[in-house]
C-alpha cells in the first residue's frame, strides 16, 4: 500500500469514526510508515485544537442594531402589529426577578423593604387588574429599580469625591476612563430601551452597566480606605482589580 492509498483511511482515523477498522494492509502500512504516522498525529492535533478555539464575544449592543434593522424592514412592523394589536411591549417576571436580585445584591438591604412592599402591592394589582395595568406596574418596578441604582451611584460618587485621600494620577485616569466607558454603556442602553422598551437585552444591559458602576465606585472607596489605613498590600490588590475591570 502506498501513502497515497493509505490517505483514504485517514479521515476516519482522525475523527475516530465508530466501527472503522483498518484492514490488514492499511494497518501494516501505518505501522511501518513514519510519514503516515506523523500525518495522522498532526491532523488529530489540528482537529483537537480546532475544537478549543475561542469564540469572539458578540458586541454587547449588537442585538439593538439587529432589532433596529428588523424594525426598519418593510413589512416587519405591519406583521407584528397585526399580531399584537399594536402593543409590542412585554416584560417578563423572570427578568424582573433577576433585576431585583441584582439590585439587592449590589445596592444592599436598605432598599429591600421598600422594593418588597412595592412588589407585593404590584402583584396584588396584577391579580385584579388587566394586562395594561400589569405592564404599567412592571414598568414602574423597573423604573424604581433604576432609581435605586442611580441613588446608590450618586451616594457613592459623593463619598468618593469628598475623600481627602489623594489618588495616584494613573489610577485616577484609569478610574475615569472606566467610569466614562460605563456611562457610555448606560446612555446606550437607555437609548435602546427608549426605542424598544420590551427588549430584555437592553434591560439587562442597562442594569449590568449600573451594577458595574456601583462595583467600581465601591472599589474606589475601598481603595481610599486602604490608603487611609496605610495598607499598601490591600491598596495594590484593589488597584489590580480596578485596572482589570
Amino acid at each position, binding site marked *: 500500500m502506498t501513502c497515497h492509498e493509505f490517505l483514504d483511511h485517514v479521515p476516519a482515523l482522525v475523527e475516530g469514526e465508530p466501527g472503522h477498522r483498518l484492514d490488514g494492509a492499511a494497518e501494516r502500512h501505518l505501522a511501518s510508515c513514519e*510519514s503516515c504516522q506523523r500525518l495522522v498525529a498532526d491532523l488529530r492535533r489540528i482537529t483537537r485544537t480546532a475544537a478549543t478555539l475561542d469564540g469572539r464575544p458578540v458586541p454587547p449592543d449588537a442585538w439593538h442594531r439587529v432589532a433596529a434593522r428588523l424594525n426598519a424592514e418593510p413589512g416587519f412592523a405591519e406583521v407584528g402589529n397585526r399580531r399584537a394589536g399594536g402593543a409590542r411591549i412585554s416584560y417578563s417576571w423572570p427578568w424582573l426577578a433577576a433585576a431585583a436580585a441584582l439590585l439587592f445584591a449590589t445596592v444592599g438591604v436598605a432598599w429591600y423593604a421598600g422594593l418588597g412592599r412595592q412588589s407585593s402591592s404590584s402583584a396584588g394589582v396584577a391579580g385584579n387588574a388587566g394586562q395594561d395595568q400589569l405592564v404599567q406596574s412592571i414598568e414602574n418596578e423597573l423604573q424604581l429599580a433604576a432609581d435605586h441604582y442611580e441613588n446608590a451611584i450618586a451616594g457613592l460618587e459623593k463619598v468618593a469625591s469628598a475623600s481627602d485621600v489623594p489618588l495616584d494620577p494613573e489610577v485616577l485616569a484609569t478610574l475615569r476612563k472606566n467610569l466614562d466607558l460605563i456611562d457610555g454603556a448606560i446612555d446606550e442602553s437607555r437609548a435602546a430601551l427608549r426605542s424598544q422598551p420590551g427588549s430584555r437585552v437592553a434591560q439587562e444591559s442597562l442594569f449590568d452597566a449600573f451594577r458595574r458602576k456601583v462595583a467600581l465606585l465601591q472599589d474606589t472607596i475601598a481603595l481610599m480606605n486602604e490608603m487611609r489605613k496605610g495598607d499598601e498590600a490591600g491598596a495594590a490588590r484593589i488597584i489590580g482589580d480596578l485596572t482589570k475591570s
Partner: protein
Amino acid sequence: MTDVPRTADATLARRLKQGDMDAYEELYRLHARRLYNLAWRMLGNASDAEDALQEVFLQVFRKIDGYRGDSALGTWIYRLAMNLCVDRTRSRAAHDEQKTETLDPVRMAEPGVQVPEMSVSRLDLERAIAVLPEGYRAAFLLHDVEGFEHREVATILGIAEGTSKSQVHKARLRIRHFLTQPSVATDAVTGPHLLEKRA
C-alpha cells in the same frame, strides 16, 4: 451537536412568522454567538461579521414563510448564514482558489517529502483557517470548530455528506501544510499571500 426539539422549533418559527420581536430576540440568544463567530472566521473581521449577523436576521424574517420544518430551525439559520458568507466571499475566495489550487497537500503524505515538525498554536490555526479556500473553510469551521456532524454540515452547505467529509479532510491537510511551513510564525501575519508565495 444538539438542537432544540422540533416542537420548540415549530413554535418559535410560528412566532417568527408573526413578526414577534421577542421570538427574534430568543433566536438571537440561541444562535447569535455561533453565527457571529462563523461569520467572523468566514469574512475575516468584526465589522463584516456583525453586518452579516444583522443580515441573517433580516433573511430569517424574509424567508421564514418558506421554512417547512424539514430540518432543525438552527440548521436552517446556519444555512442562511453560510450562504450569505459564501456569497460575500465568493469572488475573493475564487481568487484565492486559483492561487492555491496548485498546492497538492496529498504530496505531504508521500514518502520522501520531508515534513517539518508541526506546532499548532490556536493563533496559528486561526491564521491557517483564514487562508483556506472558502469551501474548505466553511466545512472545517462547521465540523471541526463548531462541532456539527457531517450530515448537518451537508445540509447547511447544500452538499453531499461525502463531500463534507472530503472538504474537511482537505482543509485539515492544507492547514497542516500551512503550519509546517518554516516561516509561519513571521509570515502568517501578512495573510493569504503566504500560500500564494509558496505555490
